[in-house]
């Protein structure tokens, strides 16, 4: 099949086609270090400023500097634009700019590209002096020809060399020019954004980059015959744009968490990068500990002695912290732990998303260690949740685990700028003397709650211990005390659950055929899929859980309104019908398992571990298949 191509010399009398779209996904891919991400970030920011919904996510190879021209080494960025708020990374890519055909192949191999994708491809490789490279190009073209992509060859190198000596350092701005024309972005705004992005560099850099931008723009204007219009929205109010990890870092500051102890681990570390940059001016200490265990210990020691603190990690790190988490629960020291989940088990997929730590977070501590587990669903919630988590940890004197994931950590999207309030901040540690006779665990027999004694409070001297203890914090092994103290620590969760509201229903609160239940970062994709399914006439609704331990109230009653309930999660579950898998031995998704145990409702699950966020299109397919009485 002959590929439809448009070379530099073609299109003298081009016929323009302009598509108005409400939703489109764009990618820029290159070898590592060629700046595709910078290009996409600027493009995304300008689009957000022009009123589009935007979700960008970086495409990161596993190595820092993988070999060039390698499908597995594709590095880049994906930008989804919409005429409404965009809540997830979407389905396949519609337009892609590729700096070499191997990076493009990498995306092709992952089924990332739509069948009718428009591809703007650097063509220098086709005529490369090295015959091996030319052969690779030919082979790639052959493989790509089996799909109905439209490939447009672009002489990027040749063009860029007219402005800079090293095109490797300029192609990204040329590509930005292509996209700016293609999507009719405001050229002046783009220049401003370039100036901002390179504000710390020499002025000549910005000047050259703007020249390259203009070059790409005019090349596109002369040579391309297709353009897209994504209508913008009226801004509802001031917006900010950042990724979920930056939101967690700022959220921690807003919450008055004055000390963060951590050990580097992907994909959580960028929270610490942000804190490292800004925390000190708030009087905050970011302590990089010698290991994950020490990070938990330092956070707990600091929390014990004063204000509530937090630690940041990912699955393998949380595993190392389990003994300390048990200690904090046992000694009733408030602590916030943020787990930015990645693919597991073991080292797993460090840069990729999974929601596989739910059970470990909830039940992973030896002994009975009741505590709170909650999950943000959006980037904006990553900011807000920190204040709430800290407040709950202090009110209940316990551990609160916040489960974010790699999808939120790397996704960048605008959200309404928070209206900050000093009330979010923790007050200074109480240093008033302890009245005579007060006990360090003076459990209210009804609620299990008690007042915390903090070093410095005269009259409150006691030794807290991870051993079984009584109200006075004295080691006690007698049956009555053991049973009573366990009851008191557990009771706090029930008391807390009584303050929670049932989750809202997206779709039809009255009920219907199918209820999808999700948690964490999948909310946007699930709700988009449910919206599409409802348009198809399917009786499906969804609900999204924020609190996983304790679970929000009213679930059993809500589930009763639907003929079938199914979770959608990014963790592993057996698929019924696979060899040896029976309804009896099937391993369920993690939330499904919890819901089944807690509600005794026969909750089904559709879960996938694909090393990428769930695409709404795939969820839609799953919904169609799993409708009661449907194909499945």
């Amino acid at each position, binding site marked *: 099949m002959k590929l439809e191509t448009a070379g530099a010399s073609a299109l003298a009398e081009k016929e323009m086609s302009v598509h108005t779209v409400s939703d489109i996904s764009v990618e820029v891919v290159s070898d590592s270090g060629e700046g595709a991400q910078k290009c996409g970030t600027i493009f995304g920011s300008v689009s957000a400023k022009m009123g589009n919904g935007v979700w960008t996510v970086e495409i990161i190879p596993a190595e820092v500097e993988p070999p060039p021209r390698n499908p597995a080494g594709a590095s880049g960025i994906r930008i989804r634009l919409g005429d409404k708020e965009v809540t997830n990374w979407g389905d396949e890519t519609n337009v892609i700019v590729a700096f070499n055909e191997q990076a493009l192949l990498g995306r092709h191999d992952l089924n990332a590209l739509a069948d009718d994708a428009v591809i703007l491809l650097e063509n220098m490789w086709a005529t490369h002096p090295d015959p091996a490279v030319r052969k690779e190009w030919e082979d790639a073209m052959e493989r790509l020809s089996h799909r109905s992509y439209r490939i447009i060859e672009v002489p990027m190198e040749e063009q860029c060399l007219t402005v800079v000596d090293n095109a490797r350092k300029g192609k990204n701005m040329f590509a930005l020019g292509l996209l700016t024309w293609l999507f009719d972005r405001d050229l002046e705004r783009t220049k401003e954004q370039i100036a901002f992005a390179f504000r710390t560099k020499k002025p000549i850099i910005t000047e050259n980059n703007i020249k390259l931008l203009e070059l790409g723009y005019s090349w596109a204007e002369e040579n391309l015959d297709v353009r897209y219009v994504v209508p913008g929205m009226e801004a509802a109010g001031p917006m900010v744009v950042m990724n979920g990890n930056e939101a967690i870092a700022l959220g921690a500051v807003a*919450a008055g968490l004055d000390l963060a102890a951590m050990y580097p681990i992907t994909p959580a570390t960028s929270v610490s990068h942000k804190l490292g940059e800004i925390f000190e001016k708030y009087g905050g200490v970011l302590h990089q500990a010698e290991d994950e265990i020490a990070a938990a210990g330092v956070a707990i020691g600091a929390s014990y002695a004063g204000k509530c603190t937090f630690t940041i990690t990912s699955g393998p790190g949380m595993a190392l912290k389990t003994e300390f988490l048990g200690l904090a629960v046992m000694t009733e020291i408030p602590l916030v732990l943020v787990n930015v989940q990645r693919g597991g088990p073991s080292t797993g997929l460090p840069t990729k998303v999974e929601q596989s730590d739910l059970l470990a977070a909830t039940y992973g501590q030896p002994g009975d260690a009741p505590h709170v587990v909650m999950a943000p669903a959006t980037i904006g919630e990553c900011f807000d949740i920190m204040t*709430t988590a800290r*407040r709950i940890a202090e009110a209940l004197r316990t551990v609160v685990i916040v489960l974010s994931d790699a999808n939120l950590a790397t996704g960048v999207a605008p959200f309404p700028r928070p209206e900050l309030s000093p*009330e979010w901040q923790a007050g200074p540690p109480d240093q008033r003397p302890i009245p005579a006779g007060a006990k360090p665990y003076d459990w209210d027999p009804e609620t299990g709650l008690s007042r915390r004694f903090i070093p410095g409070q005269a009259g409150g001297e006691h030794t807290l211990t991870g051993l079984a203890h009584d109200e006075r914090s004295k080691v006690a092994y007698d049956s009555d005390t053991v049973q009573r103290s366990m009851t008191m620590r557990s009771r706090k969760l029930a*008391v807390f659950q009584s303050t929670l509201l049932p989750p809202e229903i997206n779709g039809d609160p009255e009920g219907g055929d199918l209820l999808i239940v999700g948690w964490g970062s999948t909310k946007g994709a699930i709700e988009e899929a449910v919206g599409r399914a409802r348009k198809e006439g399917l009786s499906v609704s969804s609900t999204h859980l924020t609190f996983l331990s304790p679970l929000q109230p009213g679930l059993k009653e809500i589930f009763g309104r639907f003929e079938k309930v199914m979770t959608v999660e990014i963790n592993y579950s057996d698929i019924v019908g696979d060899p040896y898998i029976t309804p009896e031995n099937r391993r369920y998704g993690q939330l499904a398992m919890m819901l089944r145990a807690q509600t005794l409702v026969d909750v089904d699950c559709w879960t996938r571990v694909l090393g990428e966020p769930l695409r709404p299109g795939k969820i839609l397919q799953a919904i169609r298949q799993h409708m009661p009485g449907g194909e499945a």
Partner: protein
Amino acid sequence: MPSENSGLDSGDLTVAALKALTPRVEAFHSAVATAVEEIRTFVTSRRGASEYRAEQAIMELGPFAVGRLNAEKFAFLLGSGERLSTEAEGVLERAEEILDGFSMGEEFHHVVVGPGEDLRDAVKDALDHVGQVFGASRAVELARDGRFEPDEHNVFLSSLAFRKWNRSERQLAPPLVVEVGNEDLLPAGLGEFLDGLVKIILVVKGPTTPAPLARLITPGTYVVQTADVAELSGLASSPHPGVALLFDEERDEQARFVHDPDAGATPSQRITVTHMPEKPSVGHGRRTPVWLEELEHLEALAKKPAGVALDVEGAVPSAPVEEVPADRLAALLLAQVDLGTPGA
């Protein structure tokens, strides 16, 4: 105490002296600001009806809790502290106002002694004035425990004399920079204020007696006379109370020395003299009576003991370590008792 810059030179010196004390100033401001914050938190959480408490709970939980938590029920978890009486609230608000005034700015760290005025009285007044913060915080503690009796305790809402500060309060004492004329530099009376972590820098222009601060040298007091602002850092960081005399320039007749309590066990180890003025031939001019006495006192303190066998390093043997008879006995007994293998 409002500041009035009396002279250009001493003004510059004052700024430099205040800068040297920045850590102490910040520590003080920070403690006061934190107290203000604590009062605000306390007042907001304890006043008003239960509906208000629910509102407060939702404020503290932040926007994430909206639609997810029942604020009224959560407020219940936050503890059912007694509602604050109007009277107590009034005391807290007044105290907060007082403290707020001391949580920033440098004016109350700066004292100017007018010509002919008494240095000691000026320092005393300045400390008493700042003492308001400690009085106010005592009033807060009484009021929030419901123990504030207006007749008895209203006094706490005005100045609080230095001698009434407790040990912890003296540890937090705000540092002072005092501009004083050379004629009025009679610092001997300052001894009573050199306690806790009080730090006083006397800024003086022109000639003075040779060692005005010599009389203030006591084993636990950091004392420095210098014309070099950089030398004041030791005063600020020393974990002892201290006083400095900052000259506007180096003069032959003014001694320059440091007495650092941590520098050794004996006076001579603790004192480093960088400049000792020549002794005048007695009877010259109209020297004040203290003139020679100061100098001799300083010399006597700084003099290395003669005739004592020196250690190799040139230091005298350290001061005798106190000995507890019980220890000696225990050691002797232990040495004699056979704790050998039972049963072997």
